[in-house]
């Protein structure tokens, strides 16, 4: 179980992101011969605290969001997409978001770091790789 698909849905609902990448927001796998720019969302870690007879019901996932560009100005484009993904830090986009997403209640999306890389050999893609911590619980009555 991961909230990554719902993070994709969240980003698809942010016009500042879709203005830059359209519907090219993927989970897990970035099409190698696809159209760019694009965004890739994937789970890279999780913490599930337990009590002695089960889970605490509050989950924390580390989600990586890559903003990818192969344009002639890939740095600026990837950084612009990343800014749109980040938002204003108060939930306009991803960071600071709180509320319901599909079957989940998202308590918070916290920034966890960012780094950049360039594949100059084959793909010639520039990436801004942003990590966020997403703390969530299943909404009451949702199937676990």
């Amino acid at each position, binding site marked *: 179980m991961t909230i990554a698909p719902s993070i994709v849905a969240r980003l698809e609902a942010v016009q500042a992101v879709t203005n830059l990448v359209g519907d090219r927001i993927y989970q897990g796998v970035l099409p190698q011969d696809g159209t760019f720019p694009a965004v890739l969302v994937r789970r890279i870690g999780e913490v599930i605290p337990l009590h002695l*007879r089960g889970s605490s*019901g509050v989950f924390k996932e580390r989600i990586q969001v890559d903003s990818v560009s192969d344009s002639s100005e890939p740095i600026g484009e990837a950084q612009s997409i990343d800014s749109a993904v980040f938002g204003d830090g108060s939930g306009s986009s991803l960071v600071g978001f*709180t509320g*319901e997403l599909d079957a989940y*209640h998202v*308590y*918070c999306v916290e920034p966890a770091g960012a780094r950049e890389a360039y594949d100059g050999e084959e793909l010639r893609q520039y990436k801004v790789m942003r990590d966020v911590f997403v703390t969530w*619980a299943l*909404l*009451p009555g949702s199937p676990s």
Partner: protein
Amino acid sequence: MADVTDTYYAAEGAVHGYGAQLQVGDGASPTEAFQSIAGVSSITPGEMTTADIVRTHLRSPDAHHEHMPGLRDSGAFSCNLVWLPEDESQSNVGGGSGSFTGGGLVAMWRGRETHNFRIVLPIPGSPDGIVWPFRGYISQFQPGEIGVDDKINAAVSFMPTEAYDADLP
């Protein structure tokens, strides 16, 4: 949650702190309005204690102390803030048209004012969340270290003036 004896289960209803608010009442009657203190980064509710009275005597059974409960007490709530010295909720001057018209936390401390406070906890699926009310005064307001490695924070303590536990969920 139903009786969980001998079962394994997810602890549905666990609470996360993000989104919580610490609010001050405006004192209006019969309907009091509450306004949030700005920049709150953590809240630690006060300890709820019961005094221990030792009733041991020289013939106590099993050579063991005997105890009985004394008075209950409610300790100070504490919270950490991002210090916003000119914000209406934290400053001496105050502002706005709500709970801080006559001054923020500094003014409330200076005036030794007693107010109704409440903590509002966000709960999934519940628009109103859980409300934890208490009445008290500001027993400490301490701006934090002025240095180079962090913003300046502040610590505030709120001492309850009476029992509030009957209003807890």
